């Protein structure tokens, strides 16, 4: 078990700086998820921790050890790859055993470890099969077993579930969470899937263009985003971000620098009748599309302030064309010119509030 510290780490590929002066502390025993769009540098960061990629500058610490010049095999880490990266010419047992033989673990000890691990991941009956005879989920288990058997200080997982079908992915997600609880080892997990990030991580690091946008717990990231990027990256559908000028008439006077206003689709109250709550923004619009997902319905509504996505958990409003939207003031997020969150903005509650309705 070990914490990981990245100090002023940068990485340059072909004169292009993909990681810029990254400072990151991954807590011992945490399940940290690095998430971001493709090309944000999350995999590069992971590979630098693993030692598969050398950082251009900066320091990487694993535990109390500076690992800048330590080869991957000596870093006490194990990695699970997106494509599993199994050894196709070896049996399942051979795959699990390979690292142990390299570490010169005696035979009886190896047998014991393999037996134990294959029981945990449910591979006991497949030990003599070759990887190509296994299904995707089973291969993923072999990859996990191969990583676990080394009893590493840190587990590194690079989009391990992206090659699995949706059902299996959900199942493996649960299994990974349980595995983390059981082992108590530090997990560093890379994904582009925000659902995966939210459901698995106890700490989320959101990256964009090689820079950390926010590092916090899933709920903090969701409820208290630092900037527009984080706000719109986490959550489906994404947070509605509206230019303040378009909403100026719908809002009372604000104190502070505000360029954009954001609100989550699920915080909008959608109805066909007029609502007059004085502490809410009121918008009027036309329903463009309706996505009924069973438990919820997602509406795309065209309003004066722009196109707005709303999520509603009540029965779908099937025949209605024009709807009224109500967003409570306390559910609004304000962002400045640079897209950074402006947390100091408050709405002066002057009564009576001028309520803007529709036509």
């Amino acid at each position, binding site marked *: 078990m070990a914490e990981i510290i990245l100090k002023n780490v940068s990485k340059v590929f072909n004169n292009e700086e993909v990681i810029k002066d990254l400072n990151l502390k991954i807590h011992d025993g945490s399940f940290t998820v690095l998430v971001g769009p493709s090309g944000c540098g999350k995999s590069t960061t992971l590979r630098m921790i693993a030692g598969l990629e050398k950082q251009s500058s900066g320091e990487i610490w694993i535990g109390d050890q500076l690992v800048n010049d330590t080869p991957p095999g000596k870093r006490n880490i194990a990695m699970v790859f*997106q494509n599993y990266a199994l050894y196709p010419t*070896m049996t399942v047992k051979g795959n699990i055993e390979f690292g142990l033989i390299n570490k010169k673990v005696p035979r009886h000890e190896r047998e014991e470890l393999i037996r134990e691990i294959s029981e945990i991941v449910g591979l006991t009956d497949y030990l003599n099969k070759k990887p190509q005879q296994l299904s995707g989920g089973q291969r993923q288990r072999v990859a996990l077993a191969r990583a676990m058997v080394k009893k590493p200080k840190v587990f590194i997982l690079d989009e391990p579930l992206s090659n699995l079908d949706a059902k299996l992915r959900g199942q493996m997600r649960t299994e990974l969470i349980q595995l983390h609880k059981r082992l108590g080892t530090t997990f560093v997990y890379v994904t582009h899937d925000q659902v995966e990030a939210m459901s698995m991580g106890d700490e989320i690091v959101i990256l964009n263009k090689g820079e950390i946008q926010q590092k916090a717990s899933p709920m903090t990231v969701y409820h208290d985003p630092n900037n527009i990027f984080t706000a719109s990256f986490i959550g489906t559908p994404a947070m509605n971000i509206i230019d303040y000028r378009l909403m100026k008439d719908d809002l009372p006077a604000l104190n502070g620098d505000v360029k954009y206003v954001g609100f989550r689709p699920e915080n909008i109250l959608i109805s066909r009748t007029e609502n007059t709550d004085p502490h809410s923004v009121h918008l009027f619009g036309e329903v463009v599309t309706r996505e009924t997902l069973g438990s919820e319905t997602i509406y795309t509504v065209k309003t004066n302030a722009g196109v707005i996505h709303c999520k509603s958990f009540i029965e779908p409003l099937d025949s209605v064309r024009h709807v009224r939207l109500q967003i409570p003031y306390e559910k609004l997020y304000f962002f400045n010119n640079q897209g950074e969150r402006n947390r100091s903005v408050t709405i002066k509650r002057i009564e009576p509030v001028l309520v803007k309705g529709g036509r």
Partner: protein
Amino acid sequence: MAWHKLRPYAMIAPAIVIFCLFFIYPIGYMIYLSFHEWNFVSPDKQFVGMQNFASLFGEREFIEVMQNTFIYTALTVSLTIVISLLLALWLNNNGSVYSLVQGAVFSPHIISLVSVSMLWMWLMDTDYGLLNWFLNLFGLANVSWLTDPSTSLFSLVIVAVWKGIGFNTLIFIAGLQSIPRDMYEAAQLDESSKARTFWKLTLPMLSPTLFFLTIIGMINSFQVFETISIMTQGGPINSTNTFVYYIYEYGFRYFKIGYSSAAGVLLLFIVGLLTILYFKLLAKRVHYR
């Protein structure tokens, strides 16, 4: 029968006709001739039964030819494969130097074997050759590359290896590039040494390539003819006489068609047998993805 049923047969008919005419018929005719005595011009072919085969094995010259062929094949195939594999491992990188070397190594493959033979005859000339000039430069004595029975066969092996390396290297590089990179990264994380990674991962992954090149190389070497015909004519003292050249000599210089056909049948038999053996024995150990 309706046209639509006939059509597929009509489509492949040209290929089948050509195949039969230039492949099946000559083989059949060769087998037929191997039981006869014929001088290529006389109208009557005398049936002699197995006599051609019997005299073939009674001939000391032919036993030597067989030995030569096997030594030549074994050396050429093994040297070509080892050298091209090493080259491929080195060249399996991106960069202008690598592609330059790759191109240079490949170029002999596109030169006609006749030109290659002429070139090497000149290089290996005992008195004026470039090879001996180099040897002299280091104070070494001249080597009679092609005119000494103890070196002549090896000299031919050098030519074959030189010509074969390019193609083999190219195929090996293609094989190496199809090995996923993350497998090597996993091996790195598993603390696998370079040598162990090569023996346990790279080589097994390359086994289909290795298998293919061995078979192709073996069949080609068994049928070596041009270099021998141009450079040594089987000499000196029969030291470079191999199977196909022997068949050619007896057939088209001494006009002992029956005898030479018997040798041809034997060659067909040996190559066929080796191929079957290879597939049976090696295929089990080859990893196909």
